[in-house]
């Protein structure tokens, strides 16, 4: 049996099913292959328990000794079944059963102690495997939970299902262990160094008028900024808040209106025939072309900006949600129909969750274009806001403030799309876990 076959066999066996690839390889390396003839006894009750066995082919009869309150003391084991788990129990290192081969049988055996050592190195996986061992002993061998209670634990805290926060923390720790953060800092380092040298050290012809790195930083972190805007001035936060509030309102409206519209566009052919052509003629009109009408249509300076921001977001959300509905495999709705779901139930249970991956892609795009059109809107009309800061600083020759506005936009924009992604992960646990299993 080669490594691949061993891995395949491990994957089929209940305790090892969810073990990630690398770990499976490591476990497979511990495995030794053995074959037995009909009637061979693999071990007797009371023997020292060294190895765990997995049946590759053939059949094994497993008879528990008297005194272990199993409801079914006898069990027949086939390909993929695991036995000999006494080898991984904490203080029970002798065999509880007798095992006999009923025909020519091929097995792999794995030393219990080596397996446990392997799990000490990656306790998360270890605990999952061991809890599956416990379930198996309890359910398949119908032994009371006390016996299963002897399987060792590796992590300090009891492992729960990976949910929102734990998952985020886990990812963060994984991320810090990977080379990614260091590459990221190097990237930023290069950008800042280029800025510093081109503008302030070499004073290259085109860059000479640009505000330099040190000037901007000094201004940004100054308690008494020359041009009136730094992290110590309340105006700075007022501008951020005004922009964020506009984004929140526009994004909220775009989501609340765009998601249902997209769902219905994808779901109902008739509805789509009415609405989609209108939608498709309005969509290619650039947001900036709406500026005059927006100002004419809405009173004051606030609503036109929000309207412009909303518009682009709304298209992105609705369109992607519709696409999401269209890409749902037909067999899901058919399966739901077979299982007796009504049309409305199918919509709720199949269409909505099925469209969710695309929907969240749409929301990611939506928040991006929202910032884009917000800044455009704030530059043209409106008071306050980061776009307004950038525009007025230009006309009033406060160059460092322009850059402060830009950097702030970058940070706030990035944070907002990270929040949308986190919301998506939170709502699509199934997808997160599926992708995690694929090693992505």
């Amino acid at each position, binding site marked *: 049996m080669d490594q691949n076959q061993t891995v395949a066999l491990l994957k*089929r066996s209940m305790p090892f099913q*969810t073990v990630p690839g690398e770990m499976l390889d490591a476990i497979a390396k511990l495995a030794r292959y053995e074959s037995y003839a009909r009637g061979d006894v693999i071990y007797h009750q009371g023997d020292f328990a060294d190895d765990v066995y997995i049946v590759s082919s053939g059949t094994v009869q497993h008879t528990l000794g008297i005194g272990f309150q199993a409801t079914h003391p006898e069990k027949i084991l086939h390909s993929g079944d695991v036995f000999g788990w006494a080898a991984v129990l904490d203080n029970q290192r002798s065999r509880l059963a007798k095992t006999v081969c009923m025909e020519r049988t091929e097995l792999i055996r794995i030393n219990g102690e080596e397996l446990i050592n392997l799990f000490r190195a990656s306790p998360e996986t270890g605990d999952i495997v061991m809890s599956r061992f416990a*379930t*198996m002993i309890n359910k*398949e061998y119908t032994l009371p939970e006390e016996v299963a209670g002897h399987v060792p634990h590796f992590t300090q805290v009891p492992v729960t299902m990976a949910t929102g926060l734990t998952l985020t923390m886990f990812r963060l720790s994984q991320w810090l262990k990977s080379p990614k953060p260091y590459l990221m800092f190097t990237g930023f380092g290069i950008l800042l160094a280029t800025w510093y040298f081109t503008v302030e050290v070499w004073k290259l012809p085109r860059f000479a008028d640009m505000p330099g790195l040190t000037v901007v930083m000094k201004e940004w972190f100054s308690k008494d900024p020359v041009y009136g805007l730094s992290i110590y001035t309340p105006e700075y936060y007022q501008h951020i808040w005004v922009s964020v509030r506009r984004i929140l309102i526009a994004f909220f409206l775009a989501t609340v209106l765009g998601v249902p519209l997209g769902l219905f566009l994808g779901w109902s052919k008739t509805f789509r025939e009415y609405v989609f052509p209108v939608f498709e003629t309005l969509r290619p009109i650039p947001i900036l072309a709406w500026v005059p009408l927006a100002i004419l249509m809405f009173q004051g300076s606030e609503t036109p900006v929000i309207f412009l921001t909303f518009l682009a977001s709304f298209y992105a959300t609705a369109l992607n949600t519709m696409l999401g509905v269209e890409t749902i495999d037909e067999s899901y709705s058919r399966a*739901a129909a*077979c*299982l007796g779901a009504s049309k409305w139930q199918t919509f709720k249970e*199949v269409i909505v969750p099925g469209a969710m991956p695309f929907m969240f892609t749409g929301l990611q795009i939506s928040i991006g274009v929202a910032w884009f059109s917000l800044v455009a809107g704030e530059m043209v009309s409106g008071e306050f806001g980061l776009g307004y800061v950038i525009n007025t600083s230009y006309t009033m020759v406060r160059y460092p403030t322009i850059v402060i506005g830009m950097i702030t936009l970058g940070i706030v924009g990035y944070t907002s799309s990270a929040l949308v992604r986190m919301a998506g992960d939170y709502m699509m646990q199934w997808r997160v876990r*599926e992708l995690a299993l694929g090693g992505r």
Partner: protein
Amino acid sequence: MSAVLQKADKAEKGALKGAIRIEDVVKIYDPEGAAVMAVDHCSLDIPAGEICMIVGPSGCGKTTLLNAIAGFHSISSGKIFLDNELLCGPEKPMAQPGSDRIVVFQNGALFPWKSNLDNVAFGPLMQGKLGKKEIYDKARSMMADAGLSGTEHNFPGEVSSGLRRRVEIVRALMNEPKVLLFDEPYRALDSLTKSVMHEALLEIYYKNKVTIFFITHDLEEAIFLGHRLVIMSSRPCKPKKIIDVDIPHPRDYSVLTSTRYRQLMDETIELVHEEAKKAFSAGEKEG
């Protein structure tokens, strides 16, 4: 009908449900345009509790027939009955999909966004027949019976494809269907997993005697599982030959080494090969 099944029939007269009668069914796709005839005056009687294996060349119209029984699309003419009740016919070209006939799909259709347990509980929950607690208790015990304990709270995407198929069958059985319709469910599995799945399916079948309509390309699978093999002609689809598999149930993998199995295998290979050749040359002409 096989002798074995006839005996079983006599023993449990009236107990079994799920007889399918297909009468002169015709299905033409796109009758105004290209008019592709997928099923041509097909008649077939499947007694309750039989495992009927449908074998035929690719593209001959097997899925079309299955979809007509399931109620996913209409038929052009003919009638289909389930236990002498009309599913679809001249006045009612499309059957209503329902939990008495459940399809297990070619690529699997467990909802990836629901846990295995929620998938299994889905049918009864939708139909609102039982209380929530009863449904989940039943789902748990059925999963345990099928060797699926420990995977209840996993999502389908987290377990092996073999297990996924088993969950899907349990999801169907939760509804106590009369008929299970399989459309090449094991096509994507490796041969090892496949053999495990076959025995598991038979085990489930011996516990819940439902009628099984099973489409496959795999002759080994067809003979190993089926009471009867229906060999379809190349498109349009029509039964060309019906073979009784007179190997008694319950079966296990030792069947594969018996002489009778070998004989049946040789017989079918010949028939199927002939049709495959026809389908291939027809395809060449069309192309």
